[in-house]
């Protein structure tokens, strides 16, 4: 199988870029729990290290761990590692995650290229059962279609029914009301996020049984994204908060973020198709909280509104043009 970094240049994915910036804005508000410098970032940096670079530069996080399973190209990862502070840990997430010190507050972004599978849920559970209050978890999966890759199957099987899902994921992980419609189109991204959230809750439930009331952890969802730079992708992000630190969560002001989403719905990141000149035109009336007040000129309304919503997070195409 080809590692995804060999076919995708991550820097050319504008929606992903915007998502990363929005995540960064979420993470910056974690300072109510502890200074950002004291946080540890755990991610899958690939050979681009875009996430590691951004969170180091924007947040000041110094302890950065990049998990990388492509052992055969270790030298290439080391070569591309931009900062000394980034620790490359070779192995799958399943190998590396349990061995980390989870008493440490962490920003964890499990950014998979694959669609949801049982191994991903196992990783999610590992984090959920070990995370400490103030640790934030983001999980991204592809949402084009689920595939059953159990080794006894002669070839991978598309999962299009609840039964197919059950066969692959097991009873405990199959939602009672799963319909074929939930496994296709954009609905799959919603289903994927829901199953990830259920897994987090199940993991928390098992460890909370042994905790004092004040130490009982909850996963407070902060946002959810979906977009399609190429394949459909979705992300869910939230923070683990113990009962005693609920006030911190409220004080962080996550709820005031324009992309705060604590339910089933996600922010659909659509990168508007605009020329640099059009973008500069729109910039002059931004920020603009009432989209009716936007001076659109000849720009199509939908694109203009998308731009107004996302302009702070979009890559700066204009600078290349000038």
């Amino acid at each position: 199988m080809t590692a995804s970094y060999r076919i995708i240049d991550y820097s050319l994915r504008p929606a992903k870029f915007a998502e990363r910036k929005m995540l960064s804005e979420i993470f910056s508000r974690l300072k109510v729990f502890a200074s950002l410098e004291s946080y540890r970032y755990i991610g899958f940096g690939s050979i681009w290290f875009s996430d590691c670079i951004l969170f180091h530069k924007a947040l000041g996080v110094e302890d950065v761990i990049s998990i990388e399973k492509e052992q055969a190209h270790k030298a290439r990862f080391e070569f591309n590692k931009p900062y000394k502070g980034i620790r490359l840990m070779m192995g799958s997430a399943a190998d590396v995650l349990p061995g980390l010190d989870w008493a440490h507050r962490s920003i964890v972004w499990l950014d998979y290229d694959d669609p949801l599978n049982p191994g991903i849920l196992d990783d999610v559970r590992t984090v959920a059962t070990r995370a400490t209050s103030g640790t934030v978890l983001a999980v991204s999966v592809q949402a084009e279609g689920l595939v059953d890759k159990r080794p006894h199957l002669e070839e991978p099987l598309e999962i299009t029914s609840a039964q197919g899902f059950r066969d692959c994921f097991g009873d405990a992980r199959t939602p009672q009301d799963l319909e074929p419609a939930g496994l296709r189109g954009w609905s799959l991204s919603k289903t994927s996020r829901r199953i990830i959230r259920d897994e987090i809750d199940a993991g928390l439930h098992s460890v909370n049984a042994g905790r004092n009331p004040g130490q009982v952890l909850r996963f407070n969802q902060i946002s959810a994204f979906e977009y399609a730079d190429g394949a459909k992708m979705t992300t869910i992000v939230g923070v683990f908060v113990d009962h005693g630190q609920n006030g911190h969560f409220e004080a962080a002001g996550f709820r005031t973020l324009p992309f705060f989403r604590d339910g089933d719905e996600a922010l659909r990141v659509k990168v508007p198709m605009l020329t640099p000149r059009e973008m500069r035109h729109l910039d002059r009336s931004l920020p603009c909280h009432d989209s009716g007040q936007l001076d659109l000129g000849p720009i199509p309304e939908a694109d203009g509104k998308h731009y107004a919503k996302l302009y702070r997070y979009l890559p700066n195409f204009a600078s290349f043009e000038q």
Partner: protein
Amino acid sequence: MPNEELHIDAMPTKAFFVDMLVRDIPLERAVLDLVDNCIDGAKRMRPGEEPDFHGLNVSVHLDGDGFEIADNCGGFDVETARNYAFRFGRPEKAASTDYSIGQFGVGMKRALFKFGRYFEVHSTTTKQRWSMHVDVDTWERDEGNWYFDFANVEEGQFADAEVGTRIIVKRLRPEVSRQFASEHFKRQLSEMIRSHQRQFLAFGLAIDFGGLHLTNTDLRIRSGGQFNPAIEEFAVDDDTDAPVNVRIVAGISESSPTAAGWYVICNGRVILSADRSESTGWNSVAEQKDGIPKYHNQYARFRGAVFFSCRDSKKLPWNTTKTGLDASTTVWQLTFPKMLDHTRTVINFLNALDNSIEEYGAKASPLLVALNKETLAKEVEKFRGPATFSWNRTPQVPGPKTIKIQYSREETKIQSLMTALGVTSAKAVGEKTFDIIFEEQGGEDQ
């Protein structure tokens, strides 16, 4: 005013009481309970989480005529015998042994009544010597009298060599006598004692069973080179004076379908061994793993051990008889998800190993060769953490990396190609046809 006619005498007869008391306990368990009491004696003499038990011994002898267990583990005094050891149930204020494994409140009497109709207990401490003889038939007939009488009590100074406890049971119940006479039963029992008390044997305690010296069972994990087991240590209730210390060690060992699985050890007592059931999450992990319905022999190299230790034995995840797991305890709930993580990591490795063996064969598998070359088996107690599970991910491969191709074609067509190519197996047909088409398409130059 109490009126005779308004009362029902609900006092159990002694015979009924004895019958109920012994009913639910398996015979092997009753013997283990008595061994536990000896070990608790040893723990009182030499307290601590990792004591040195060298010089202490327990000997067990049983046959169709009787049972005898003797130890030099400190003995217990008249006060203890009177107030605790022979009371039924454990009084609230009973002094407890740190890191205890025994059931002092119930275990001893229950075992004695279970075995036979006559027993003697002799115990000597450094300051006291006493004994007791009980004829159960006589005792049962004397309704209303729940006393046991001491045969003699001596005060004085007693030499270390004399200190200890000896229990003898005679006039065995017929079913017990049959079991005790059976070599099969004895072998099973000695194995049980050996595996349950392995850690105390490791601490130096000598257990003699029917004249045979028991050694601790082998629970070893391989490490060395780039191979290392996962080791995780943590404490529960560490803000109290009786924290529960937990150590998880998970790794690989020899392929053995009978020894593979999780071992759960509470205060040194093995309460689960080679477990591959739901209790240790094996099936649930496996169910989630792609295509692994349950434990499979490809995991016969898996070994995991969880050590729980606590001064206050009530906090440990065992049932009230300290013989099995109580999964509802807080400590277990906090430990279990971590065990799942480590099981999964080791399973991933074992899958990789299995693939490597399938691809190269057992003799040539680079991963298996590296495992055998780099690692040595070490007793699981010797691993101290924390450590991440690791293995040699880039073992030396003989030649370039290969991938196995598998496909099916009609048998008659394969046979005709066998003839045409002059080879004798379907595998050879596959390899030969691949080589031919590869050359035809330009070979190495393409």
